[in-house]
């Protein structure tokens, strides 16, 4: 039993020990979509001069999208594959997000291309998260599965997400990936600047 008043912070994405009522799988994924949307919202409010902030937020977006894809692909999709036939489309949409994320990393954070890629990133995310999952897949899963299954699945997803977020190896891996993805793009941009 909890004692005293519980102060609810509005920092949603922190993995603090706040005791919350059990979340169902679809709620949990829906909330994580919110986290991704929040990062992009913050990114779109940054100015071109604030390169550091843009880079830091892009890094955060990269990690969160990668982790989101991972928990869905490893836990959620295999669990619903028996009754949801259109999973291949969802897999393909993840691939589109990965490619768009790479395009965003390649773009120079101080340029107009970055803003264009960010707009596209939002479109790509909404095509998957909203049009496919939130409007079609999630309601169907909620209709077909009972509360206990959904809550148990939600716990598994949350548990895995927490573990991924605190994994040092994964963080290092993401950093390396970002470095490699930015590498050639930055090199090309620099060469072009020197040429002009």
């Amino acid at each position: 039993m909890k004692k005293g008043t519980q102060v609810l912070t509005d920092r949603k994405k922190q993995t603090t020990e706040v005791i919350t009522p059990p979340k169902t799988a679809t709620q949990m994924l829906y909330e994580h979509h919110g986290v991704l949307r929040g990062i992009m919202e913050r990114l779109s409010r940054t100015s071109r001069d604030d390169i550091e902030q843009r880079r830091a937020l892009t890094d955060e977006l990269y990690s969160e999208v990668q982790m989101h894809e991972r928990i869905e692909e490893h836990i959620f999709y295999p669990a619903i594959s028996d009754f949801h036939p259109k999973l291949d489309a969802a897999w393909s949409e993840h691939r589109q997000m990965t490619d768009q994320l790479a395009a965003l990393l390649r773009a120079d954070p101080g340029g107009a291309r970055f803003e264009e890629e960010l707009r596209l990133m939002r479109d790509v995310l909404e095509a998957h998260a909203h049009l496919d999952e939130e409007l079609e897949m999630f309601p169907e899963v909620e209709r077909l599965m009972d509360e206990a299954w959904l809550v148990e699945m939600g716990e598994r997803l949350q548990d895995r997400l927490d573990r991924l977020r605190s994994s040092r190896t994964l963080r290092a891996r993401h950093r390396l990936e970002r470095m490699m993805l930015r590498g050639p793009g930055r090199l090309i941009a620099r060469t072009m600047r020197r040429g002009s």
Partner: protein
Amino acid sequence: MAQHALERLMRKIEGQEWLDRPGHTLEHGYAFVQNVFGLSQRPVRRFLHGVWFGHPLHPALTDVPIGSWTTALVLDTMGAGKGRREREGYQRAARRAVGLGVVGALGAAVTGLTDWQYTHDYARRLGLVHGALNAVALGLYTWSWWERRRERHGRGRLAAMLGYPLVAVSGYLGGGLTFRHLVGADQSEQEADRLLQPRDFTPVLRANELQEGTPRRVEACGVGVLLVRSNGQIHALGETCPHLGGPLSQGWLRDGSIVCPWHGSAFDLETGESQNGPAIAPAPRFQARVRDGRIEVRRVPPVVSAPPGSALTRQQEMPVQPPRPRQREMQP
């Protein structure tokens, strides 16, 4: 009998769900390589899928290794039992044929992998096995070439004999990908509509309901049509992607083209032409105009080289009734 055995094999492979995980791991890895080296960008994709060619590039390239390795097999057989000097000529020729096949197979591997990453379920599993068999065969033929170069022709012939049946079976599976699963074929529903509906302008939506930059799906005579307003102009294309039938209305706009949400094929809004693949065929085109505040569409008949005066040409030239002066203006 052999035919049934091969078909059973194909069905068996299609049912192997455990192949999905290694398949996705391979795709993730290849996606990363493509993104690091910029291979996922438009010109490279266009080249590898064969959009410039008007036909998937991979099936065309596979003829090079299959033909060359068949030639090597023939040369090996002909050279056997000949005198020493004559045999040397055959051996040299066979080595060249094997080498050319290896080069062609590398090209087929890259284009095949690029096509394969954008396939779904059954075709995906079949494609993975097809690729794996070919990779083993490529290894055997590379070994064969190496041994032949070091004048160890016996081993070279053995490696080629081991590789050839693999290539043959794998070629059959590759045929299954095309003829059973229609990978690389035009799968757009609107293209399948031979009646070319709607023939006359049909109202589909109020003009003020179509917002700039937000694609929408409408139906006209039972045909799904994609409507997009870009820079104020209204464009209409077939709504399902010619590649695997993805819903284009759920896609997004990139540099003047609509992008399929499933595999990223981009189609020019004006012409419907595919920009980068995996879709090769263009998206079917529709004409759009605004009348009395409503958007009306009709199918643009495909331009074919029909002889002048034929029924098809007349149909294209026929004025839209009721005859009104120039019906080109598409602006709201």
